């Protein structure tokens, strides 16, 4: 009955059979092994090569028997490549000198090898890069093949346990309808996978560090996303208590369903605009189902994090147009790529040498230094704007010059599009994320030059409190309830209103029902959050008056510690809705 603590990313509780995914095809996690493990990893390397080679040999024979001599020859070549001792020797070197796991060493070697062809540029060798990719895929398939086959054969829903999951894997799993919940070694609340899980309402705990090594497929496992706890093989009393929790949550969900169609309005008639946060157009439906009246934050960086190539303007345009179509007449705020920090393009090499990536070349800074990419994205967004209420928002603005530069690039792109005869929304609203202390302090200046602003609390908190919440040694210091954060937010809202610039809040704080009364009291009238949080927040809004919310705010602003703030807000929130 071991119990493990991690970070809960959605409020559900689930009990089910575990399925441990060793690794995956798209991304091999960077893993190190201990010194005595090294010979075993080298042995594993041989096994992987040998099983890949044997598989190809079988396929070659099948093709040869069916008369496909040419294909058989290609396979013959792959087979010889895999039998070549040279690659194994180089990979074994990586394992021995860097203590990489066999899987990771293989992926590193193959990526470097493949890049040699891609860089050469002549069509002759680019063709060859495809062969190498084929070999690479086959090897990776043999690393993770076993677990994937099991996944395809699944008949019953399971709890996935893995080192990490990519957002696209998560979405695919969710669509398979066999995913009860998941527990991961990696990640924090702001990881993309966690954000999507919260949006989809899938119970999940991340940041468990070594859960994948401590669970075997078939174990019974409890994932308590509310408390960030995972219990492996629970005893009878634990089972009963978690089953009761799950049942209670189900009841709460049912009561929330009842207000789904109703507006988010306080008892004294102040309407709050509730919007959804998304990463994929396919999440839009869920947002509307749960009561959103638009999309307040469409994070686009996922498009750039997929493995093989940068998305072209045309590819982006298709995705954005798909989003606009799904949103219909309602607003869609597209945020330009927020790359860097913890979101790096694999193999881009750009951020690998940064000592302090969160203070480095990320987000709008990255965009302004990669103008070709940035322009392509703006072109795609603008072209999509011809189809609906599209607005564009720039992330991580920390000085007014960045906003001016970004707007300048936007205006140049508009000129180009006009000359090329494309339709777009000429007066597309331009917004700024307020997520650095610098931007919060200089809200007025930014407000004068933008059409709307949105407070991104995740980064604002991390930069203001100087806390990395994925660092467990200091994670407890990370809180939206710190008086410094609350004063910053209050100031931003006040300044924005004075400048008559529309202000919203789209960080995780917006989706935490504990802060709903306070945010309404501060004067926020637009909140954007993951779909899964919408019903609760709406429930709170419909249970308070604006006058009361303002009273709560005044009281909260007088507190000196985050403890007092949290205790008071908890009490006040429970008074209006005991089921929180």
């Amino acid at each position, binding site marked *: 009955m071991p119990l493990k603590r991690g970070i809960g990313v959605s409020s559900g509780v689930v009990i089910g059979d575990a399925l441990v995914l060793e690794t995956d095809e798209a991304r091999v996690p960077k893993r190190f092994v201990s010194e005595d493990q090294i010979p075993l990893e080298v042995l594993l390397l041989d096994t992987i090569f040998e099983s890949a080679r044997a598989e190809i040999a079988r396929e070659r024979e099948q093709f040869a028997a069916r008369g496909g001599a040419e294909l058989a*020859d*290609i396979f*013959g*070549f792959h087979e*010889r*490549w895999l039998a*070549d*001792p*040279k*690659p194994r020797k180089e990979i074994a070197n990586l394992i021995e000198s860097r203590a990489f796991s066999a899987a990771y060493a293989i992926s590193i070697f193959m990526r470097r*090898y493949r890049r*040699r*062809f891609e860089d*050469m540029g*002549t069509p*002759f*060798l680019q*063709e*060859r890069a495809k*062969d*190498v990719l084929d070999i690479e895929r086959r090897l990776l398939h043999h690393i993770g093949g076993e677990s994937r086959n099991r996944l395809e054969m699944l008949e019953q829903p399971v709890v996935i346990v893995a080192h990490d999951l990519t957002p696209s894997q998560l979405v695919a799993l969710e669509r398979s309808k066999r995913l009860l919940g998941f527990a991961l070694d990696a990640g924090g609340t702001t990881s993309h996978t966690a954000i999507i899980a919260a949006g989809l309402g899938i119970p999940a705990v991340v940041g468990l560090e070594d859960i994948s090594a401590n669970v075997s497929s078939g174990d019974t496992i409890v994932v308590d996303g509310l408390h960030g706890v995972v219990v492996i093989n629970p005893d009878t009393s634990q089972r009963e208590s978690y089953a009761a929790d799950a049942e209670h949550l189900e009841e709460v969900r049912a009561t929330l369903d009842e207000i789904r169609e109703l507006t988010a309005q306080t008892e004294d008639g102040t309407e709050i605009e509730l919007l959804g946060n998304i990463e994929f157009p396919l999440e839009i439906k869920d947002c509307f189902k749960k009561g959103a009246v638009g999309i307040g934050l469409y994070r686009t960086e996922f498009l750039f994090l997929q493995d093989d190539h940068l998305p072209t303007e045309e590819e982006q345009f298709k995705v954005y147009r798909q989003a606009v179509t799904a949103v219909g007449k309602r607003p869609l705020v597209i945020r330009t790529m927020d790359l860097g920090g913890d979101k790096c393009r694999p193999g881009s090499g750009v951020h690998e040498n940064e000592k302090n990536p969160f203070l480095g070349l990320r987000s709008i800074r990255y965009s302004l230094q990669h103008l070709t990419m940035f322009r392509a994205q703006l072109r795609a967004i603008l072209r999509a704007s011809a189809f609906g209420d599209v607005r564009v928002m720039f992330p991580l603005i920390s000085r007014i010059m960045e906003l001016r530069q970004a707007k300048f690039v936007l205006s140049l792109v508009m000129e180009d599009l006009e000359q090329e005869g494309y339709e777009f929304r000429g007066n597309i609203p331009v917004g700024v994320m307020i997520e650095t202390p610098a931007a919060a302090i200089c809200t007025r200046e930014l407000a004068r030059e933008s059409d709307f602003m949105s407070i991104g609390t995740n980064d604002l908190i991390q930069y203001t409190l100087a806390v990395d919440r994925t660092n467990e040694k200091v994670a407890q210091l990370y809180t939206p309830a710190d008086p410094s954060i609350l004063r910053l937010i209050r100031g931003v809202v006040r300044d924005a209103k004075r400048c008559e610039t529309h202000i919203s809040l789209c960080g995780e704080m917006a989706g935490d029902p504990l802060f709903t009364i306070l945010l309404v009291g501060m004067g926020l009238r637009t909140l954007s959050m993951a779909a899964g949080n919408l019903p609760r927040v709406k429930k709170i809004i419909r249970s308070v008056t604006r006058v009361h919310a303002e009273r709560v705010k005044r009281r909260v602003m007088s507190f000196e510690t985050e403890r007092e703030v949290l205790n008071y807000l908890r009490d006040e929130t429970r008074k209006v809705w005991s089921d929180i």
Partner: protein
Amino acid sequence: MSEKTTHSEIEVRISNVQGLHARPVMRFVDVASRFASTIRVRKDELDVDAKSPMEMMLLEAVQGTALRLVAEGDDAQQALQALADLVDSKFGED
């Protein structure tokens, strides 16, 4: 002729239309592997092992490209002769 040769060099020119693509590389490696000598293939600054498909793939050799073959070992001369024949036969293609 009975004297052992330990070092041998020869220049060959790729003459098949498609150049040194996967299938010719495979044939080349197969022939090279039949000999005990170490065999290197050089082109510009590249110097690769003729018995390693991994390294041979790095050779960018189209029709007309000249390659320098260098062998060390008891059967060096025979090895290079066999490889030169293979290249001249256009790897059985065209």
